[in-house]
């Protein structure tokens, strides 16, 4: 590719002269806000609007845990293989360690703090059925379970197991999760 000295700030396409670049910007990007060099994103976390400046290499986990102080989501494997950092994004459970924060513009995120603050019965059911030992994986499980119950209020035991199959628990508390989630499902759908 030949060298082009004038770079469109929107899409980084190169041009030979400022006139050409201006024409391109008017044709393709008219009215579009300039991309923020600092990576300013807007997103809703637990119902509250945030507009943090993020670096490209921050994951959503970094943003939520290290910079916004929501320490519920836990980092364990940091490679998308354990489920401890699960958050709900636009209604679906996802792994915050494998999502770039800068790509979360306009998203709605829910963490375990939001689920607890809303008084969701999952929290008490997890305590009642002691669905934890060391507790490190628990926020990830609660978050994944909440997303399941939002999507499917009356899951079968097997559906609960499948939905939670992306979360690892070193302490082996797996049977308790199904009991807790099914109890909450009954409670929520009975009323």
């Amino acid at each position, binding site marked *: 590719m030949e060298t082009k000295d004038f770079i469109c700030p929107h899409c980084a396409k190169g041009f030979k002269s400022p006139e050409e670049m201006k024409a391109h910007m008017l044709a393709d990007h008219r009215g579009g806000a300039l991309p923020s060099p600092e990576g300013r994103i807007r997103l809703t976390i637990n119902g509250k609007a945030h507009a943090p400046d993020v670096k490209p290499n921050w994951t959503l986990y970094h943003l939520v845990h290290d910079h916004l102080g929501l320490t519920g989501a836990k980092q364990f494997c940091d*490679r998308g293989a354990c489920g401890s950092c699960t958050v709900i994004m636009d209604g679906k459970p996802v792994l915050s360690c*494998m999502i770039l924060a800068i*790509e979360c513009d306009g998203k709605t995120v829910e963490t375990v703090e939001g689920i607890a603050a809303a008084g969701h019965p999952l929290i008490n059911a997890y305590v009642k059925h002691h669905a934890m030992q060391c507790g490190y994986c628990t926020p990830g499980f609660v978050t*994944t379970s909440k997303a399941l119950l939002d999507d499917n209020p009356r899951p079968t035991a097997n559906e609960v197991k499948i939905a939670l199959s*992306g979360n690892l628990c070193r302490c082996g508390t797996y049977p308790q999760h199904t009991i807790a989630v099914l109890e909450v499902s009954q409670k929520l759908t009975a009323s």
Partner: protein
Amino acid sequence: MKNFEHFNARSIDEAATLLVRYGGNAAFIAGGTDLLGKMKDRILPAYPEALINIKTIPGLDAIEETDDGLSIGALATLAQIATHPVIREKYTALAQAAGRTASPQLRNMGTIAGNLCQDIRCWYYRATQNRFSCLRKGGGRCYALKGDNRYHSIFGGSVKGGCIAVHPSDTAPALIALDGTVITSKRTVKASDFFKVSVNRTTVLEPDEIVTTIHLPAPAPGTQSAFMKFALRQSIDFPIVNCAAAITCEREAVTRARICLNAVSVVPRRTVAAEQSMVGSNIDENTADAAGAAAVANAEPLEGNAYMVPIARTLVKRTILVCGPSPAEVDPV
């Protein structure tokens, strides 16, 4: 992760232009579940200077039934595909394959095109900090050949005859069995011709080429398809062996069969011998077993992976039986 520049592409042209501008030292990112792991572990000699987000390109995630089949946008997530009613009914193998990939969370993030274009999982290649400069990275030797090759190819190597890393995709064999086509920003390629091994590459894609659509032809009347996977865990795991089959029967006799194994060779392996052995016969224990035997007849296992041969054979047999008239008799893997 070391820092990098980040762009949200608004069109395929824009994404390709950006990539070219970085002289190849940039990468496209969609689901990111493969790429970010590679970057965090610094497994490759080069670290991308820029990531170009293609999730922001509109219209690339649609799943639509067309006159001649089904078209799936490159950005459709594996979860979308696994739960799509039309795919579950008519393109069963693909829905099953997408539903057995990784974990529920990763299926909400990972895309179909990303699953096809994912990099290999060889533990020497993936060792952190680029510890092994292997053939696949342009280096001088394959460390798995004399090392621990329990998860490697049973059908020989690639890249100077050496690299024996298998292709780990679950959806790739399903697309090949269903006779799918990959449409990119530059051309149309049959799914069976899409995978090609060379240094740093697993597909025929050029560096600035982007998969835009996957097309599946409408299955002929009397066609059943299925996918089976053998892995050490039921979830969050790559296959030891997986298999997809699409079999068309007319009055119980097989008229057309497409069977594809994966994770056994450097690219997904369509087992033509097994297909041919099925054509003309009925689907039963004996014919399915014979097809399984034909599928692994040319296997050349290495020191650590001979155990994969009977698994591949059995998986071919079971996948064929699931496509037959009495699938209930088969144990799920």
